[in-house]
């Protein structure tokens, strides 16, 4: 029980840290890294549950879910990074100016 608590706590901490990083960094690449930390937190939470199942064997369902999640996250990361690169090539900077004036044409 203590093991699952420790890892689950770590997982939620990672998620919150990632969320904080996602919110404060204006830079795209840092935002994407922070999202990956959030993903790591979510995965760790699922795996700590898989381990929790008392019995000697680990619950395979969360493990399968995490494997799926890892593929999905890497695809999304690669796609987002490619978008960021294209933005850099087009505009010369890699920031998302929030609240850009929408009236510009």
């Amino acid at each position, binding site marked *: *029980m203590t093991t*699952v*608590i*420790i*890892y689950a706590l*770590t997982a*939620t*901490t*990672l*998620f*919150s*840290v*990632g969320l*904080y990083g996602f*919110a*404060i960094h204006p*830079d*795209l*690449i*840092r935002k*994407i*890294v*922070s999202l*990956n*930390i959030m993903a*790591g937190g979510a995965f760790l939470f699922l*795996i*700590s549950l*898989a381990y*929790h*199942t*008392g019995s000697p*064997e680990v*619950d*395979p*369902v*969360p*493990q*399968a*879910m*995490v*494997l*799926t999640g*890892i*593929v*999905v996250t*890497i*695809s*999304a*990361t*690669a*796609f987002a*990074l*490619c978008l*960021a*690169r*294209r933005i*850099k*090539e087009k505009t010369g900077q*890699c920031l998302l100016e929030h609240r850009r004036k929408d009236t510009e044409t």
Partner: protein
Amino acid sequence: MDLVFDLIIGLSLAGVSWRIVRAREHFQAIVLFITFGLLLSLAWTRLKSPDIAIAEAAVGAGLAGVLLMDTLGALSSPRERAKVVISLKLLIPCLFLAGLMAYSILYIPEDFQGLGIVVREALPQTHLEYPITAVLLDFRGYDTWLELGVLLVAVLGVLCIRRTDNIKGTMLPAPAEPVGSWIVKLLLPLMVLIGGYLLWLGAFAPGGAFQGGVVLASAGVMLWQSGHPSLGLMPRLWWKILLCSGFLSFLILAFSSLFYTDQLLTHPATKTWILGVEYAATLSIALCLISLVLGSPARNHENKGV
């Protein structure tokens, strides 16, 4: 003893993640992120999930690291300093959220039973011996199918952003030094071997389509890094077909299952079907991941214009 180990891993994970957020240089943040991936795979080994540890080490630390570094090289000078200030306005809600989640974690039931028992009972019907592979390819095959779809759509998205229909023309300048080509010659066969081994292992032990595919993908990316055109050599149609192969094999399974059973994705009671799907999935995972890495940089001719 385990408790100490758990505490060390937990604390260092939290510490490293905080350092990543607070790091001044992007480069530093990415190096720390790779460390973070390795620490996570250590945690997963500890939690008896070797499959995920392999995947994380190859993807989280390996491919994600390559992608991030590569992008960083294109985006900014690596030593560029970011202004990192602690914003209380954001930190307090995040701390509050962390506190709420920590509180609710205490309510995880002591006698928690996941789906492990149900899976183990149904395992003999799948003709597979390893439960995770059974869950991935049989019980929750629909998820895996859509996951292959996500990979494929990501590749399509990258091609769409790049306005191209192939991944030719992103060749890196070949390194002049001999060690680079030597190490590729040495490691490449080994990685292909390991990829195949992991795939074969998946039927009864940790390993499987995904892990095998990821190792193959790293081999392909390494080839590209050493200045070889890698997948760019492939004829375009074959590249496309292999890219879709995993998704397509599930699609074929789905269509054929409409004819002989009531339920979608039911497969015949032989191992051949599952193995076919698994091999196709491995290939397309590897190809999609390589294409994601290779497709992301600007074309060479585009580069000149910029």
